[in-house]
């Protein structure tokens, strides 16, 4: 009988010890959850603050730089098409090629001053990408104007060789602004 009581007491003690251990781990777990939640809340708050700041930046970027310049962007590409269209002439003289090339570079310079230089204030990478887009376009057009192997007075060839360059540049520029996230 004394042996069975000992066993019973032991089981009771073991049960209490087990309860204490479970309670301890519950406490630890609850503490962890509280700690984790506080940390998560802080992180969420920080992320929300960053996102809010980014949204404000994007809003200013849109209102101060992009919206007022949308007509400017379309005007530039339309003007460029008109200026480049001057090469649709048979037997273009060397002097005329130089004049057309100069007028295109002048137009690009005005576009830089009136619009995309201001991107440098917002984001250096965005400005660099816009500048590279523009340089690639102007360089490609000038290269083609002085390529004596190309017969650019042919409208189909002109559209293929130059028209597509202008479309790609315009789409590339719009994509730059569309994908800008305010970082």
């Amino acid at each position, binding site marked *: 009988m004394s042996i069975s009581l000992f066993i019973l007491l032991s089981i009771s003690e073991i049960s209490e010890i087990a309860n204490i251990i479970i309670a301890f781990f519950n406490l630890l777990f609850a503490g962890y959850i509280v700690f984790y939640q506080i940390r998560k809340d802080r992180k969420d708050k920080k992320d929300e603050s960053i996102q809010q700041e980014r949204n404000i930046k994007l809003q200013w970027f849109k209102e101060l730089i992009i919206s007022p310049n949308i007509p400017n962007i379309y005007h530039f590409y339309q003007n460029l098409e008109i200026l480049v269209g001057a090469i649709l002439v048979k037997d273009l003289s060397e002097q005329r090629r*130089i004049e057309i090339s100069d007028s295109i*570079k002048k137009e690009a*310079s005005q576009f830089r001053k009136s619009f995309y230089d201001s991107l*440098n204030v917002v984001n250096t990478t965005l400005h660099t990408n816009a500048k*590279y887009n523009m*340089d690639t376009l102007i*360089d490609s057009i*000038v*290269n083609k104007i*002085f390529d004596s192997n190309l017969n650019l007075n042919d409208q189909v060839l002109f559209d293929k060789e130059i028209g597509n360059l202008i479309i790609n540049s315009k789409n590339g520029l719009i994509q730059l602004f569309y994908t800008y996230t305010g970082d």
Partner: protein
Amino acid sequence: MKNAVIDLEKFRTKGSRVFTGRDRGIEVRNASRIDQLETEVDFISIIIPTDIGSINPSFLEEFLFNVVNKLKADGFNKKISFQNEGRYKILSDLNEAIERILREETALSPND
């Protein structure tokens, strides 16, 4: 007075009548050693081949990047000149390149 001459004829792509592109500008800057020459001589003359139709600002911006940054516009115009006998006139492209280089430097400088 020590003078140096850079003849762009030596650096042009065969058959081409233009100098365009940033990469090409860097290549010619290195090949012509213009940055080193600028420190060694009092005056540099750059000869433009007579049949050249255009030297684009993208090319000039890289070709002249270090010398313009060092000398600024006035110093550059005093020390470096272009000999230009053909129809193409470089002045407006050169001014555009100088302006772009100096603007870039201003934009990258930390605010005081």
